[in-house]
């Protein structure tokens, strides 16, 4: 019979009080573990590990809004960039690959964001060393669509399903054009899972997505810093373009899809893979100083700033609060053991009369505190991960964020030693009372 088993007997003897104090520790630890796991998921979701690109180009404005709209599709785009600008960037010798992105619309069913892009988007790793896997085929024809795994699950879409788009902004009307699902992406654990990708060519074919000539001319000249045209010049240019792209004097075969003039095309942002890290830094720096209304930003920085400035503070606050809960539970253990000491005076007296040393009875009380605190901690760890396990499907369904209930945070490793310290503190004073117990007095007064 060792000290731990003697302490365990004592714990069992006061089973209700022991269970309640242990449960309070378990609940505190459970909350702490849940907070740690959730923030770890948020950290990996909103960090560089989720983005496979070096830079994002977009209209000048909030870098965070650009990242949130381009990568996470949770914010409206800042503004649009002329397609000619995309072509220009594509030719920059420092750029390895430039992927245009056009967003703003949503699916009629489920309200999932529509992302107009080119097939190459799916060739590039969506995160470092993580490639898109697709069931079906990639985008080939203008009205082809690839859907994320979450979209397929929620909307019940599969290859061959057709759908319409709801126009973004305040109007919210449904476009007539019908898109067909040609492929379903395997789960990625990123916002791609709850996105619908359509061919950029098809995106421009949608009625209303091609800008009127006069507006497009004004915007393009403004963007490139060219002097605005006078009314007569503008009308003449519009007339010239209308004539150029008019269908008068020729007929198209049925099913022919006319390409939208480049001038009328917009992109909301451009994803860039650079030839080298230094090129990315230089490129971003140049665009910071540029007079043009565009910027190139490293997507990591705004998200890291968001994590540190906003979520970091929330994380610390929640950890602080859950630590307080655990601390209060520790005080509960102290109170529980301390209150039991007068009732246990006889028990301690008997142990001492049987030859237990003062240090031995001190250790037994301390072991009891450690059992309560440690036991509660282990149960709390299991409950915390169990809670994540139970809520993961709901979170995934609502937000598309995949939570791995079995991923352990380094901070969790510090939990048990921390609880050990807490248990030692909680058990110290009651242990001291046991240590100082007068044996003859304890036996006589029982």
């Amino acid at each position, binding site marked *: 019979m060792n000290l731990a088993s003697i302490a365990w007997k004592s714990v069992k003897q006061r089973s209700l009080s022991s269970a309640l104090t242990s449960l309070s520790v378990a609940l505190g630890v459970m909350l702490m573990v849940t907070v740690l796991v959730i923030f770890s998921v948020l950290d990996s979701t909103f960090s560089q590990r989720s983005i496979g690109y070096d830079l994002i180009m977009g209209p000048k404005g909030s870098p965070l809004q650009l990242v949130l709209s381009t990568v996470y599709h949770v914010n409206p785009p800042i503004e649009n960039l002329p397609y000619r600008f995309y072509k220009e960037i594509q030719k920059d010798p420092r750029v390895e690959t430039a992927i245009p992105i056009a967003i703003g619309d949503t699916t009629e069913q489920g309200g999932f964001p529509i992302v107009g892009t080119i097939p190459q988007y799916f060739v590039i790793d969506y995160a470092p060393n993580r490639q898109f896997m697709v069931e079906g085929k990639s985008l080939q024809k203008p009205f082809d669509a690839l859907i994320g795994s979450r979209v397929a699950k929620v909307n019940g879409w599969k290859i061959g399903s057709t759908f319409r788009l709801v126009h973004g902004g305040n109007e919210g009307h449904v476009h007539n054009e019908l898109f067909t699902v040609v492929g379903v992406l395997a789960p990625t654990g990123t916002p791609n899972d709850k996105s619908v990708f359509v061919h950029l060519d098809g995106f421009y074919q949608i009625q209303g997505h091609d800008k009127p000539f006069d507006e497009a001319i004004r915007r393009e000249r403004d963007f490139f810093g060219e002097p605005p045209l006078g009314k007569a010049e503008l009308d003449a240019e519009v007339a010239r373009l209308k004539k150029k792209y008019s269908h008068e004097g020729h007929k198209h075969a049925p099913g022919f899809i006319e390409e939208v003039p480049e001038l009328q095309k917009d992109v909301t942002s451009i994803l860039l893979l650079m030839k080298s890290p230094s090129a990315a830094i230089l490129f971003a720096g140049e665009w910071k100083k540029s007079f043009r209304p565009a910027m190139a930003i490293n997507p990591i920085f705004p998200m890291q700033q968001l994590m540190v400035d906003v979520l970091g503070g929330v994380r610390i606050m929640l950890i602080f609060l859950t630590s307080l809960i655990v601390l209060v539970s520790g005080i509960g253990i102290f109170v529980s053991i301390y209150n039991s000491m007068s009732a246990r005076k006889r028990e301690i007296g008997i142990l*001492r009369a049987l030859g237990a040393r003062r240090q031995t009875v001190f250790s037994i009380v301390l072991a009891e505190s450690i059992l309560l605190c440690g036991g509660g901690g282990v149960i709390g760890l299991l409950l915390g991960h169990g809670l994540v396990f139970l809520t993961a499907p709901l979170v995934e369904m609502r937000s598309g964020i995949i939570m791995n209930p079995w991923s352990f945070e380094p901070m969790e490793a510090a939990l048990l030693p921390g609880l050990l310290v807490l248990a030692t503190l909680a058990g110290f004073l009651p242990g001291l009372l046991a240590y100082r117990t007068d044996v003859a007095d304890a036996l006589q007064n029982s």
Partner: protein
Amino acid sequence: MSLVLQDVRKSYREPGGRTIPILNIASFRMDAGEQVVLLGSSGGGKTTLLNVIAGITAVDSGRVLIGGIDVCKLPEAARDRFRADRIGYVFQTFHLLPAFTALENVLLGMTFSGKGANRAKAIQLLKRVGLSHRMNHRPGHMSVGEQQRVAVARALANTPVLLLADEPTANVDAANQQIVLDLLRESCREEKVALLLVTHAPEVAKQFERVEKLAEFNRPGVAPLAAGASA
């Protein structure tokens, strides 16, 4: 191993500051394996004397020699170990731990000795006291007679040289008094353990060959000659 007491004095200080002398024993001796009963009235210092011999209560002065070792001179930790290894103690109110089964209570008696817990021996002892069928019962589910028998088994667990019994039959019903007494005496005889039993009951005392009246050799109110002369 013999037990020798020499000039043992013990007094308690009351909250008001008054000193109450409890023990004043000039000399007492019992030999190895001997069985002695100390007859005394309530409040006569019987329990204090046993606690002094067991090293539970420190003396004001004097010597308590067990096998030639002065228990009073041992450091506390060594005294605890000495008690665990060599002294068995049967209390008037049994002092079994309620959360432990009969077997566990006996094992607990072995835990703090240098020999460690010996399950086979604990079972054998419980069989010896006729509780083979109650080994896994807790004290709360046992009769007082059975509880005292568990206490006897626990006291013998470390094969002590001396067994102290403090009114072992006082809380036991009449039917069990003789059983407990016989058990104590026979067990001590078999194990060659010296038995010092204190009681206020003459019917218990008369069963022993050597009966000492505590009042005859414990004179708490009598001061030493030098102190008396100055008083």
